[in-house]
């Protein structure tokens, strides 16, 4: 009579897999036999998972909205060089300050290789009129054709003016949709898209021909809403007097960045200079009325209200700024009458905001997952004290400590997984709910990674919550467990 091997290892392995499948089934059965109790237990996990997903969807939506706006104003590569009052130690040189001129563009083009695109801008206050209506656009300026690329504009109707138009200073302009909407009527109002190309518009009383119109800029969200409204409102307008509801009264709720971009009018730079003498005198922006008003006649070149440049890569932003600074210090005779504006600060702010939103959201979701985990642990402890006898029976027929441990742990994980899956399903509903009264224009975006992370957390919670009850159950003494009533 020989002693058989107590545990052969490949057999033990197969055993443990078979055991796992059976444990999962047993766990399901256990959950099914206490449906209401299990549902309540899962509720914690469901809330935790769905709030985690919803939070990340909200933040992702905001992030996307902010990025869209950032791209709309020219992206991170855009650097604006604007005139600035002189630093205190150079105040006495203010009458010699040359300001930003076309010379700077040439100098930078030759000496600053990190700069790839130049767009000099000459801004002028303008009143547009046509068909008896007037409109003051936010931004009317003389530019080179390069401004199109610089500011991410797209011409939808007609064309952008070209170098020739600029060279001979033709009276042509390219307008944004806001101007069209104000002077000719918005598509929503008049029921059709008006193409103003070829029309004559008076800019400060001077007749100009519209040769192009930009496309209508809007956020994703606005675009969707507009399309929806379009498909809905095909019915004719009610008769009667159409009232003007005031400035922007009938305007769709609009993201400010996109509205400003639509309210743009571009003229050739030379036209602005020659027809309006816009650059002839220039107020220094930050020193207010107190001083540096120079007639360009004394220093020569027309002054630009600003110079936008695009740098090669954002990674070399500080090097590029240094390069530009060096060149400009040279052309400006060492007088620092300019400053740089980059989108970096804004991007930083966006990132900080998103980071904070993500952190606080994760905290809330984490707490609800923790509470869910405590709920699972609680119910597993209650469950094993109800099942002491069962555990004793299982041990008496040969269940090892590890078998009981696995069984309880698997039950806990099964509850967590079911809760997690339900939570994922619920999160879609929750996201819809939130976006219906969301303060932002940005539709929440549910990401696969967020779903995966939330689900992984729910499983983790199930494991952690199950370990202690499982150890407690596995350590039960079979004799006492069998006697337990």
């Amino acid at each position, binding site marked *: *009579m020989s002693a058989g091997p107590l545990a052969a290892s490949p057999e033990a392995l197969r*055993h443990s897999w078979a*055991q796992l499948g059976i444990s999962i089934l047993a766990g399901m059965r256990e959950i099914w036999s206490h449906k209401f109790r299990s549902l309540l237990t899962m509720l914690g996990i469901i809330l935790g998972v769905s709030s985690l997903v919803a939070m990340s969807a909200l933040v992702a939506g905001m992030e996307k909205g902010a990025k869209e706006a950032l791209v709309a104003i020219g992206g991170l590569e855009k650097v604006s060089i604007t005139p600035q009052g002189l630093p205190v130690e150079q105040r006495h040189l203010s009458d010699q300050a040359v300001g930003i001129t076309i010379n700077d563009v040439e100098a930078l083009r030759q000496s600053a290789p990190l700069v790839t695109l130049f767009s000099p801008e000459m801004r002028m206050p303008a009143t547009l009129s046509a068909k008896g209506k007037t409109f003051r656009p936010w931004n009317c300026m003389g530019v080179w054709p390069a401004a199109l690329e610089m500011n991410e504009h797209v011409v939808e109707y007609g064309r952008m003016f070209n170098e020739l138009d600029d060279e001979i200073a033709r009276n042509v302009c390219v307008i944004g949709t806001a101007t069209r909407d104000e002077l000719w009527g918005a598509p929503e109002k008049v029921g059709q898209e008006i193409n103003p190309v070829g029309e004559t518009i008076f800019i400060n009383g001077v007749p100009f021909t519209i040769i192009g119109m930009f496309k209508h800029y809007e956020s994703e969200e606005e675009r969707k809403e507009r399309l929806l409204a379009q498909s809905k409102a095909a019915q004719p307008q009610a008769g009667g007097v159409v009232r003007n509801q005031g400035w922007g009264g009938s305007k769709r709720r609009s993201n400010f960045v996109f509205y400003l971009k639509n309210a743009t009018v571009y003229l050739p730079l030379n036209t602005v200079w020659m027809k309006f003498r816009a650059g002839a005198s220039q107020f220094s922006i930050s020193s207010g009325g107190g001083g540096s008003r120079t007639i360009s006649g004394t220093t020569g070149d027309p002054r630009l209200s600003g110079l936008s440049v695009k740098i090669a890569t954002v990674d070399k932003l500080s090097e590029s700024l240094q390069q530009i600074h060096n060149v400009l210090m040279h052309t400006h005779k060492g007088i620092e009458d300019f400053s740089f504006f980059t989108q970096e600060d804004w991007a930083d702010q966006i990132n900080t905001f998103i980071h904070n939103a993500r952190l606080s959201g994760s905290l809330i979701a984490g707490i609800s997952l923790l509470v869910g985990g405590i709920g699972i642990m609680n119910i597993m402890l209650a469950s094993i004290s109800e099942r002491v006898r069962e555990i004793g029976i*299982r*041990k008496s027929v040969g269940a090892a400590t590890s078998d009981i441990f696995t069984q309880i742990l698997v039950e806990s994980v099964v509850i967590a997984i079911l809760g997690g899956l339900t939570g994922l399903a619920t999160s879609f509903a929750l996201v819809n709910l939130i976006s219906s009264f969301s303060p932002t224009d940005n539709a929440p975006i549910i990401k696969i990674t967020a779903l995966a992370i939330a689900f992984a957390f729910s499983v983790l919670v199930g494991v952690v919550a199950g370990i202690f009850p499982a150890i407690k159950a596995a350590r039960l003494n*079979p004799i006492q467990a069998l006697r337990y009533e």
Partner: protein
Amino acid sequence: MPLVELRNVSKIYRLGEEEIRALDDISLDIGEGEFISIIGPSGSGKSTLMHILGCLDSPSKGTIRLDGVMIEKASARQLATIRNRKIGFVFQFFNLLPKLNVVQNVELPMIYSGVSGKERRQRALAALDAVDLANRAKHRPSQLSGGQQQRVAIARALVNSPRIVFADEPTGNLDSHTGDAILSLFRKLSQEGRTIVLVTHDPEIAAVTPRRIEIRDGKIATKIDLTLAGMDRRSGSGEAAVVAQP
């Protein structure tokens, strides 16, 4: 070599200062195919003896050899495996799992020995057939009578073909008629060559076994062995002869 070999086994519990000897220096052999009963009033230590024999508990002193394996040196996992492969239990309160149906209850030991699903079902049904309950396979234990539940428990105890079966007051919760039926089932199993240990407080029940051991205060008080007296245990009846007294 006997199937079970107990040598100088003691089990000592401590309650504060007091030392309770549940088992006191017991030596015992059980041979292959024997039908033996352990008798004793409650508190005599017979249950402790059964737990030690059944690898549910380990002795404080002494050695046990079961089927050639030294039990007192085995780890918890090894003990579980031994219980699973070599030992079957039948309890007074049947101890079936109420949430599982009859055939699932019988399958339980095979789950822990890693038998595949199909074979498990076949063997469970065969074991149920052996106790005439194959037609109740899909019932819940609560839908069966006490005697039927005990037969399910016996089927579960036998399904892994153990070397030895322990029955702890198997008729204690049954009326005398059903109890007799269960006892004759045990006798039948014994005649088929199973090793069966019957633990009871009732000398009448113990009378079905040819060999009886009486435990009192943790010690073996009386040994009766009809087989040594030349009586065929298969006869299952006859006068008890006192063979040895310590």
